[in-house]
């Protein structure tokens, strides 16, 4: 038993469902107790999904336990097949129902006899792997299933596309800023003169999977989802893949150069140096930002980075290489990918932490006292408690990770977003912190609008000094709040105690 307060990655079935429901016209049947049926809530609430989530729980209750689940599961699969004619139904247990150790493959075989569409059992060890590993595996499983099928039927296209083309692998529902990243990647490919052949799994049809092999190469922007598929396609179909996350100016350039190498090896004659140069110097604001005086003030500041493999690595490199910020600690909760993580970040940070125990990260942050944190929602809250600003750079996802405006993390627009995030975290974070200390977020009516120093209240020397220490931007608000507090209590003299009492009362 493990005492756990927080999970960075979800259980395996969440990964499987994310992949299954990203595809078009694929339905998932979850063999699970009633309460495990919350994926649809996450999807509809976090992503504000307009369509009904194509996941149905085949409910395991006391009766089903006693009677055995086969009949019910098979019924639910065939029923869904009749009702909605999905191309594919994916059956998955949850870690809870997997304890029952039923022969689900047998259920699937039974159901297949009566269905029009395909039926697959998610081949994942639900007790051993997490959401990310399961998602990666499920995507590979579905791709392999359809490519094998097409190969058998001799339906695999033999030709590559005439122009260089790419499959973007790993964009999925409930992924961290995935939709915006995908748009940005498509834009980038267009500018490089590369056709996007297929994007999977988001919005893809399983019927089109056989076309995957037409692309010249695969791009896997995220380490967590798609690597297994790309490796499979390389092994079976000799398709090269690029797995450099185009995040940050330097890594985006490296990714583009790798793409150039891969397509030129197949007969193209691309030269992207000028494009990279132009984007870096004039289009992306990030490189200029790094050079600007604002960023100079960040030099040598201490930061802690924590997240999934992809984002924690990329962010560590950006901070260290592009902004001159000292990454004191870089860490990830993807314990299963520890070696890769170490290899990627070790030269850019002082310390590495591989752990999925939020307490360990919290303690490390408290010990290090960085000027800013780049982490998950959990680190944001740790930061709040320690009054350290935090920019959120990785899942676990939160409704704030589905902004309505365009906010990619990848590509050149991503570099701008990240520069903003870094700048705001260090500076506005500071301001937020002051506002919080002095109750500046209070929106209660203001008694006097003036922010000038002359008022009927007398600030003693220490209080005045304290007030002057507060940056101008928030000083007025703090002053007003404190004076209002004093007036309400009939105090004419403002001392340090009054200031802090005011802060407390506003906080209450």
């Amino acid at each position, binding site marked *: 038993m493990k*005492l756990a307060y927080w999970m960075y990655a979800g259980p395996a079935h969440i990964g499987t469902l994310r992949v299954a429901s990203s595809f078009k016209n694929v339905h998932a049947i979850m063999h699970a107790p009633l309460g*495990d049926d919350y994926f649809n809530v996450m999807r509809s609430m976090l992503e504000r999904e307009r369509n009904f989530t194509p996941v149905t729980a085949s409910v395991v209750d006391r009766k089903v336990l006693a009677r055995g689940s086969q009949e019910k599961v098979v019924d639910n699969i065939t029923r869904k097949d009749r009702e909605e004619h999905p191309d594919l139904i994916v059956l998955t247990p949850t870690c809870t129902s997997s304890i029952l150790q039923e022969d689900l493959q047998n259920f699937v075989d039974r159901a297949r006899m009566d269905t029009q569409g395909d039926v697959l059992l998610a081949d994942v060890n639900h007790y051993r792997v997490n959401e990310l590993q399961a998602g990666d595996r499920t995507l590979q499983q579905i791709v392999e299933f359809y490519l094998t099928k097409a190969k058998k039927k001799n339906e695999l296209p033999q030709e590559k596309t005439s122009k260089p083309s790419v499959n973007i692998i790993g964009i999925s529902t409930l992924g961290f800023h995935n939709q915006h990243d995908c748009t940005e990647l498509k834009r980038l490919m267009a500018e490089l003169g590369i056709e996007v052949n297929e994007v999977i799994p988001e919005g893809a049809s399983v019927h089109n999977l056989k076309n995957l092999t037409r692309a010249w190469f695969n791009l896997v922007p995220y380490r967590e989802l798609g690597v297994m598929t790309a490796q499979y396609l390389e092994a079976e179909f000799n398709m090269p893949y690029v797995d450099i996350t185009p995040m940050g100016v330097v890594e985006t350039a490296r990714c583009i150069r790798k793409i150039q190498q891969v397509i030129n090896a197949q007969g193209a004659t691309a030269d992207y140096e000028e494009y990279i140069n132009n984007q870096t110097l004039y289009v992306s604001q990030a490189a200029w930002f790094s050079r600007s005086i604002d960023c100079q003030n960040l030099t040598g500041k201490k930061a802690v980075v924590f997240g999934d493999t992809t984002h924690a690595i990329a962010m560590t490199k950006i901070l260290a290489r592009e902004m001159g910020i000292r990454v004191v600690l870089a860490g990830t909760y993807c314990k299963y990918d520890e070696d890769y993580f170490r290899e990627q970040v070790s030269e850019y940070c002082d310390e590495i932490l591989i752990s999925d125990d939020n307490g360990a990260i919290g303690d490390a942050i408290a010990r290090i006292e960085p000027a800013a944190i780049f982490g998950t929602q959990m680190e944001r809250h740790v930061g709040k408690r320690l009054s350290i600003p935090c920019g959120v750079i990785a899942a676990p996802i939160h409704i704030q990770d589905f902004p309505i405006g365009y906010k990619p993390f990848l590509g050149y627009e991503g570099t701008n977003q990240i520069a903003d995030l870094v700048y705001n975290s260090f500076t506005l974070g500071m301001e937020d912190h002051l506002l919080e200390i002095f109750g500046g977020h209070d929106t209660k009516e203001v008694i006097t609008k003036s922010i000038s120093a002359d008022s009927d209240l007398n600030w003693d020397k220490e209080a005045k000094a304290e007030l002057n220490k507060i940056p101008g931007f928030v000083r007025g608000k703090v002053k007003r709040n404190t004076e209002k507090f004093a007036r309400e209590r009939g105090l004419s003299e403002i001392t340090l105690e009054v200031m802090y009492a005011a802060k407390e009362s506003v906080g209450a």
Partner: protein
Amino acid sequence: MTVAQTPNALNFDCETGNYHTFCPISCVAWLYQKIEDSFFLVIGTKTCGYFLQNAMGVMIFAEPRYAMAELEEGDVSAKLNDYEELKRLCLQIKRDRNPSVIVWIGTCTTEIIKMDLEGLAPKLEAEIGIPIVTARANGLDYAFTQGEDTVLAAMAHKCPKEAPKAEAEKNERNAISKLMNFGRKKEEVKQEESEYKDHPPLVLFGSLPDPVVTNLTLELKKQGIKVSGWLPSKRFTELPVIEEGYYTCGVNPFLSRTATTLMRRRKTKLIGAPFPIGPDGTRAWIEKICSVFGIEPKGLEEREVQIWENLEDYIKLIRGKSVFFMGDNLLEVSLARFLIRCGMTCPEIGIPYMDKRYQKAELDLLEKTCNEMGVALPNIVEKPDNYNQLQRIKELQPDLVITGMAHANPLEARGINTKWSVEFTFAQIHGFTNARDILELATRPMRRNNNLKELGWEKLVKEEAKV
């Protein structure tokens, strides 16, 4: 299966379908806040933990008073000793938080692997010196709010068996009267005792936010009825005394096990009343309690009339409109009854579980309300099938659908007004004055969509997607 006897009696169906609701372990989210000196330990898998963290939006950020005991492979395969494992975790909790009680929440997994929580608890509580309450709030047997039922039923066993001898001391024990008497002198308190009529002790059960507890307690006080205590109390150490022969009454429709436990195991007498939701329900609830104690209720009718008058601005938005309950939190019958009284019609009440005995008074009131309002009786569908319901919704085009979180946005995208059922679970909806809050919630989609009407944004999905 239909069990309709007479044409104008309520019709009950049971679809035993695939429906969506929250896991009962979600009760942890509100119970840990209600019982301030408690610690909740959910003994289950990652699936349980992720549910609490995500679907409930319960972020365990600062000073959490609940946690997961995550079962690992060794636990499931019984390689590890359950007692030793639980002891290790509970000692850690004791060291870190020192709660007055640890509530073990069993889950589907502890059921499946047959972990004997009830057997382990007495030995462990003796060893670590903290009371342990064991509730099996699992998703195999229960839905959503029934989780609270399992906890309160288990906690009922921990209520002291007899009142301490001295009268003064008894006052001390009672959290609410103590709160209300705060700062007053002894004589005044005694004086106040006389405001109450002489009646057998009454204990109310159901977890409500403190302001609502005070509100309902005061409503009964107006009738001269003294509430001896609430299950649960604000602190575990202040659980009410329950002696044989005490009267008990529930405030929520999902507490049938607690009711049964209080009757059978603690030998109390259950007052079966409609639930104090809406002015009609609140009045009926108070009247029923009064009638059991032989007290003539005072001023209730005027009170109800006056509340209804205050609600008119909201009611006119929904009068004549229809509401469809997909079924989620077991508050459905009470809410439907209130909304029908407001002038709505209701074709279907989906509900995860229907205890016709515990809800009898409420069902009778529903029937009566429909007859008085001259509207058709709703079809009550236990364990509905969401897919079938969506077909019915498509046909009926109700003006409002009260539904779980999974279906709200997709229905809205198809031009159907929705309200999340969970909001009624967490909002303060009990008592006379809170009726406004129910309508504030129920009418919000209509008010919002009235504002948006001119924009022509009714349907925000392209082809008529399969409902």
